[in-house]
């Protein structure tokens, strides 16, 4: 439970960072947004008693090892309802860090539009994870 609280605090802080950077550094705002989503996922996973402990606290994005899959594989296997949105945020986060100077390159030249769409995906991931967590608490 303590681990889940830690992850939710990190998720909220990362979202605050996203909003802070949104106007001047939208590509980095997208990175912070993804890491907010990641921590909401980790908060939900922390209480999944049927998972191996290494999967309740995943340490890597991608991996196939038994009982120590990457977070992406765990999301797709355990939380398929948010799989596409989570992978979209993951992809855009990586591209904005490594490949592109600006988030909007190739997406219409308006920084605000893709980030707004990403925030919609983030909201769905957040809502799903918090509901999942709440359903186990009751």
């Amino acid at each position: 439970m303590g681990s889940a609280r830690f992850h939710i605090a990190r998720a909220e802080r990362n979202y605050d960072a996203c909003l802070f950077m949104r106007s001047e550094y939208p590509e980095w705002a997208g990175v912070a947004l993804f890491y907010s989503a990641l921590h909401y996922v980790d908060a939900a996973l922390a209480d999944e008693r049927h998972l191996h402990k290494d999967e309740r606290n995943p340490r890597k994005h991608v991996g196939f090892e038994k009982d120590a899959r990457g977070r992406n594989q765990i999301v797709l296997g355990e939380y398929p309802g948010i799989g596409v949105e989570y992978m979209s945020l993951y992809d855009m986060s990586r591209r904005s860090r490594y490949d592109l100077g600006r988030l909007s390159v190739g997406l219409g030249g308006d920084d605000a539009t893709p980030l707004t769409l990403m925030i919609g995906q983030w909201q769905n991931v957040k809502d799903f994870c918090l509901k999942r967590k709440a359903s186990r608490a009751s």
Partner: protein
Amino acid sequence: MTSIDTIRYELDSRMQEISNDVGKFDLSVRWEPMARIARVGFLVQNYEWASRMRVIEVATAFQRAHLDDFAVDFDVIPYESVLDTEFAEA
């Protein structure tokens, strides 16, 4: 048996189904047999939000279909980014 060829063949078939949305496309595939990770670059001509999301749906469905076989890591990349030096290095 999984190989670069089998991965590319299946992904190419799945991408053909959305080629009206994404336009011209190319696949960059790397297979790490020991780690059982397929790393895939989806290069698409029409890189807009909606078409990009179609590719992510394809990539995610492919990964789900093979969750018991291997892990997939992927990027969706504008086609011109590999042709335009200024764009690629931006």
